[in-house]
């Protein structure tokens, strides 16, 4: 019958109208500045740079000394909107494997250009850049304040554990395994070197 659907729809909306006064779980929104929804683990907004507190080399503040980034510039090249700018350092610092690496003398991300695609995170071989969940980034200065520098981008590994616990643990396991392997290799190399030295010494004698 004509008009039946309209009545059905009106009944549905009336149910919503009165229901929203009686059951709070019907209300799907929260009153934002006072109430917040906890961010989902897989949420991503803009990238940040991870630093480790335990591995540090060189002077400077904690965030600068422990930064995982080695300024390989892969992310800079892969970034689709080209919002990353990196300047490589002149000198080298030891990384967590004890290997001498460059570090970024400058690392800028223009978050007004960034499109949150996470490609920089996927291409990074050093687990140095990850996605943040911080979304309250509004500012009254649209040029200066939206260009984040090294210091603003650097966040500790603990922070990474807080926002993405599963992912961060997986990363830590992988890095630890690599370190064990590297240590073993170094040991083997050292043993071989001593053996060689002994052999040379023996020959000489």
């Amino acid at each position, binding site marked *: *019958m004509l008009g039946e659907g309209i009545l059905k*729809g*009106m009944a549905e*909306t009336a149910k919503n*109208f009165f229901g*929203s*006064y009686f059951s709070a779980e019907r*209300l*799907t*929104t929260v009153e934002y500045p006072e109430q917040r929804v906890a961010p989902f683990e897989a949420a991503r907004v803009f990238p940040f740079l991870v630093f480790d507190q335990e591995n540090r080399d060189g002077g400077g503040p904690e965030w600068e000394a422990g930064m995982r980034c080695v300024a390989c510039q892969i992310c800079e090249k892969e970034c689709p909107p080209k919002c990353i700018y990196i300047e490589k350092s002149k000198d080298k610092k030891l990384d967590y494997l004890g290997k001498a690496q460059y570090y970024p003398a400058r690392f800028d991300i223009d978050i007004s250009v960034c499109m949150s695609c996470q490609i920089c995170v996927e291409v990074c071989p050093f687990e140095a850049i990850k996605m943040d969940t911080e979304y309250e980034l509004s500012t009254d200065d649209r040029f200066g304040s939206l260009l984040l520098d090294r210091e603003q981008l650097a966040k500790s590994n603990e922070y990474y554990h807080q926002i993405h616990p599963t992912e961060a643990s997986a990363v830590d396991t992988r890095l630890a395994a690599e370190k064990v392997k590297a240590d073993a290799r170094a040991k083997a190399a050292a043993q071989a070197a001593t053996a060689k030295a002994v052999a040379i010494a023996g020959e000489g004698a």
Partner: protein
Amino acid sequence: MIETCDQIFVLLQHWLVSFLPAAWQQAAGVLLSVATIVCVFPALFAVAVWLERKGLGRIQNRIGPNRVGPFGLLQPIADGIKSLTKEDIVPLSADAAVHFLAPVLLVVTVFMGFAVLPMGRNMVLVDMDAGLLFYFAMGTSSELAVFMAGWSSRNKYSLLGAMRAVAQMISYEVPLLLSSVVVVMITGSLSLTKIVEAQNHYTWGLPHWYIFTPWGFAGFLLYAISTTAETNRSPFDLPEGESELVAGYHTEYSGFKFALFFLGEYVAMFSISGLGTTLFLGGWSAPFSFLTWIPSWIWFFSKLMLSIFVFIWMRGTLPRLRQDQLMNFAWKFVLPMCLVNLMVTGLWRFMGEGWLRWVVCSAILIAAYAGLGLGEMCKQRLGPRSYRYAE
């Protein structure tokens, strides 16, 4: 005491006017009533906007405005201040004079309608013999304002919106008039005060409102459909269609002129709901004879707000119609139903008292509804979609 409460505004007016010399009294009385109308309905507009935003929010399981004042009650004031402080932009190529006149004309014609609406016992500004005719003459002029706005803006969206608005308003003007003619046929008068008087008596405590007769019920539904289209409310909001036409005919209006359009739209909704109340819902009369001690103006405004609530409820429920559906509905369903209703009303008038006329009239209306509804409106012509391109 009851009498005083009922007539409080009339007495107040007489008292205020009595301070003036006799020659000025009549003019001052009229001016005072006009000023009251011009203040009360914009105030009601603010309340209705708040109600609409809250109601739509609740219908969509949201809370609605809750920032300005308690429960967001001051939101309309904030909106008003905002629209007053905005820049008034007139497009360079616009016809400045017409562009300026359109909102003014809209508001003026919309407010003119209230002149003949009885808002309570003895509370009518001009008790015109042809009040209904005057009302429709004023209501129809607002279409001119809409087209002036769309045409003078020189913008494709404005023009498209105005074209749609005019096509829609003219199509629904016919059923609007025909659905109210039935009331005139029974009452035998075009005067709105006489129409209310005719409905203001009771049998067994129940009122003789026209909505409680078969032709009145059908007439009221047809009237409600036509008014929804006439005031461009959802689901007939094609002229504004914000998802396709930016804002329709008032795209190029900003600041206070836009606020005037917004106001005009809502006040038109009040005025047309007021007319529907007068014609079918007994105007200012109480719904039960034992409630007649409540002042008449309270009844009028409660019925008005109830209609506004139904408008909001429908807006929260129905999606927008397509242009062809809108036109088909007007010409193939609403108009034939109005004509059938006219005939049924004549039958009712000449069949005399008794239960037989109830049965016959209801049967004819239900048969017409079923026939037209199933035959024309529910037929679905589905098939492969064909495209035509310009060559």
